[in-house]
């Protein structure tokens, strides 16, 4: 019988794969979707490590990343990370919030019944469109070493590396 720790490590391993994929040669919309998936899994691994959460919840929700980022803005936690306060509060957290809000189920649960969102097509005034065609701010994810991509992926990698130190 797998333990919560086993499951947490599984989520982290998959998050690492998604981060690596986001640094590969993929289209912009996929490069936006992959960090969202990775942050979600990093948060779920932490939630599972809390001992107060279940695998069932981890497999059914897409929330967690935004709460985790809010908590990491606390000075005591921030001190354990290499990121500067301004960058965490003003750049990273808004990006993670935005990506979480673009996850289709999260968007729907928050009352938004149509895109734009990650992963799925949606109906626009001129017909059905896709994230690859119409996701807002696509230019941010245009290159694997684009500043936004680097910021997201470098911080996610640090969270994976220090996960046990922070949430263990």
């Amino acid at each position, binding site marked *: 019988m797998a333990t919560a720790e086993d499951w947490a490590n599984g989520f982290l391993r998959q998050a690492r794969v998604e981060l690596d994929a986001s640094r590969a040669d993929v289209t912009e919309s996929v490069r936006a979707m992959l960090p969202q998936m990775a942050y979600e899994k990093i948060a779920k691994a932490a939630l599972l490590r809390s001992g107060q959460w279940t695998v069932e919840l981890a497999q059914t929700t897409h929330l967690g990343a935004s*709460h985790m980022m809010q908590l990491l803005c606390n000075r*005591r936690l921030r001190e354990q990370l290499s990121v500067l306060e301004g960058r965490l509060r003003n750049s990273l957290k808004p990006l993670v919030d935005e990506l979480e809000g673009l996850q289709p189920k999260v968007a729907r649960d928050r009352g938004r019944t149509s895109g734009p969102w990650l992963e799925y097509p949606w109906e626009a005034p001129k017909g059905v469109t896709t994230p690859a065609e119409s996701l807002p701010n696509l230019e941010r994810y245009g290159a694997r070493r684009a500043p936004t991509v680097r910021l997201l992926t470098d911080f996610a990698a640090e969270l994976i590396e220090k996960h046990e130190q922070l*949430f263990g």
Partner: protein
Amino acid sequence: MAGADQDESPDRAERGRSEGWTGLAPSRGRHYTCIVAGILAPETVDTVAKMLAGEHVADDPGIQSIYLVPHSSEVRLIEVTSSVQADGEILPFRFSPARDVPFKSLVVLVNPKDWARRGQLRWPVELDPNSQQLERIFERQSLSA
């Protein structure tokens, strides 16, 4: 300690009252609070919880209130804050002991709208405000209060 006492200006004291502190001295204050907690009182879950709560209030202007969930060996805080969305899910994060924090700390952020309907949400048993005896350790007072 003397230096910390001398820093207790009327403005600071007033700010502390306006922020709703009723227990430990308002911090400019983390260091001051730390000293109070560390020297004048033994490091208990309660004192560390109040120190952490003070830091969180300073870091998150969206916090409206903080509740302590009783536990013998771990700090457990429910923080009602507008800094998170009202998604109706309870997301408990546990953090490792760190400098000045000899206990693990478990923190749940809850949007005020979710807090208002807390009886309808699915809580972990050990954190459930419907069955646990919570102690409110911080409440931000409105400006008109």
